[in-house]
């Protein structure tokens, strides 16, 4: 039970296509099975979520050249290691797939970007790159919701941190008030101790 509001409008259960059109981007935590089509090319995967719209198509006919151009552009901008835009995306490493999935969402210029554990299983450098990109988005005025269990990561870049327990949002606090101990306590179902206020 509950509602999802975007700019005050109720968008509960509107479906993926509608959410994308409303300007919500989502980077899945299952990049191999949900985020990408392993056997399809990098270019096809880059166009996956907006294939029915310009520039990738006119709604009926594909514009393969635009798909390839966009893929080359994102490969260069996000420094993706791939032999080329026609390589099946499943041939790339997890980090490079993750970069492409993030790049694909950012290219759609979302108002709200939800990232689900974007650094899981990545090497440190790629993880840092992903986190930095998210921070840049937030600095540019976008809303970024980062879902993660890496507390260091959250404490490094978040403006505000919320804690979920048993499906409930139990606390939201500015980063200055958050430390691993407080967050850990809340994550285990504890209540928020007034220690900070007293200090």
């Amino acid at each position: 039970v509950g509602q999802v509001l975007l700019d005050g409008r109720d968008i509960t259960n509107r479906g993926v296509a509608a959410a994308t059109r409303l300007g919500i981007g989502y980077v899945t935590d299952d990049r191999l099975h949900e985020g990408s089509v392993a056997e399809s090319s990098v270019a096809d995967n880059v166009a996956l979520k907006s294939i029915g719209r310009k520039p990738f198509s006119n709604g009926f006919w594909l514009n393969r050249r635009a798909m390839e151009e966009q893929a080359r552009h994102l490969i260069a901008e996000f420094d993706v290691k791939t032999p080329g835009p026609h390589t099946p995306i499943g041939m790339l490493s997890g980090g490079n797939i993750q970069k492409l999935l993030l790049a694909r969402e950012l290219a759609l210029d979302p108002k709200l970007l939800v990232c689900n554990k974007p650094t899981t299983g990545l090497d440190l450098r790629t993880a840092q790159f992903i986190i930095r990109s998210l921070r840049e988005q937030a600095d540019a005025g976008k809303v970024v919701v980062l879902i993660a269990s890496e507390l260091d990561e959250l404490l490094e870049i978040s403006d505000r941190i919320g804690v979920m327990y048993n499906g409930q949002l139990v606390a939201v606090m500015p980063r200055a008030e958050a430390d691993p101990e407080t967050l850990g306590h809340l994550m285990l179902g504890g209540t928020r101790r007034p220690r900070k206020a007293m200090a």
Partner: protein
Amino acid sequence: MTRALNPSRFAPLLTSLAAIAAALILGGIFLAMRGKDPLAAYAMLVTRGLGTPYGITETLIRMAPLLIVSAGLLISLRAGVWNIGIDGQLLVGALFAGVAATAVAGQVPNPVMWLIAALAGMVGGLLWALVPGILRVRWGLNEIITTLMMNYVALNVTSWLVKGPVKDPDVVPPQTRLIPREMRLPDIAGTGVHVGLLVGLVVVVLVAILFRHTVIGFMLDVVGRNRLAAIHAGMPVNRLTLLALLASGALAGLAGANDILGVKGLFQGNWNPGYGFAAFALVYLARLNSLWLIPFAYFLSFLVIGGEMMARPLGIPTYFVEMLEGLMLLCFAVATWFERMRSPFAHTDEVEVGPANAGEPPGPMVGEPVLEPVARAAGGQS
């Protein structure tokens, strides 16, 4: 090994050709076991099937329905939908076409009559695919079972209809009214091959364009390769699944209409050409690539026609060709296994080339992790 050194878009064909060669060798062993000389048999197959005008003409006539049926099957298999009901859809389409054609014959110009019959055939095949389609999309019933079962329903329903409601009352055997020979599909100028072959070629080219250049084809491919990703990308997965099944049903019906208008002239109660199985062999040998259907359709047609021409004089059962088709599919499955062991992605560089899991079932149910081993092997680690 040359494939690893020189990956080209034709590389996947080597697997198909190897499967065909292996099937022919195995078939030869069976012939030898029956005391026939396999080399002489195959020589006769080639000289009669490829070397006589009759053989070539019959082969080209047989190609038409195979092309249409397999183009339809290719649409559904690319979308991960297993339409095993081609034969039933074809029968219903053929019956619809036979009835529609005789109902308007003589009252409208022939081309209009052909068009009406073709549309009626497509509607018949589509309706027969609609039942499993709705069951699949609404209640998640596995279409492999339902389309297969619908074949038996079609067989009996059409044979009942042709014994009663739509029977030609002037003759004894259960059949629809005969379309007079001069009103059937004309031959391509200068040949004995009716124009159905051209329809088949056009259908194959249209399907190639569908997958290479249209949004719908792109989305059907995504649904077939990774259903979860299609849902995640906001594609109308259920509608696409239904569309794939209906398209292949409609094309099966069109193939039925083709045979009625071009070859038979009427629908007979005991007629069941069984193109469905050949279509499966064809689509897999062509590696789910529409244009490659053309040479393979010619080859399989040649096998059927040449096989008949060879079997009778040599005293070999005509079932021999069906056995060869089955052996080809078996050998193909084994060959793709070897291919995957070596390199799962070596051949998917071209956009229209079939998916890497061409040899195994595209997952018919949501969440079936067909791609998992491939994806894990290729990109699991960062």
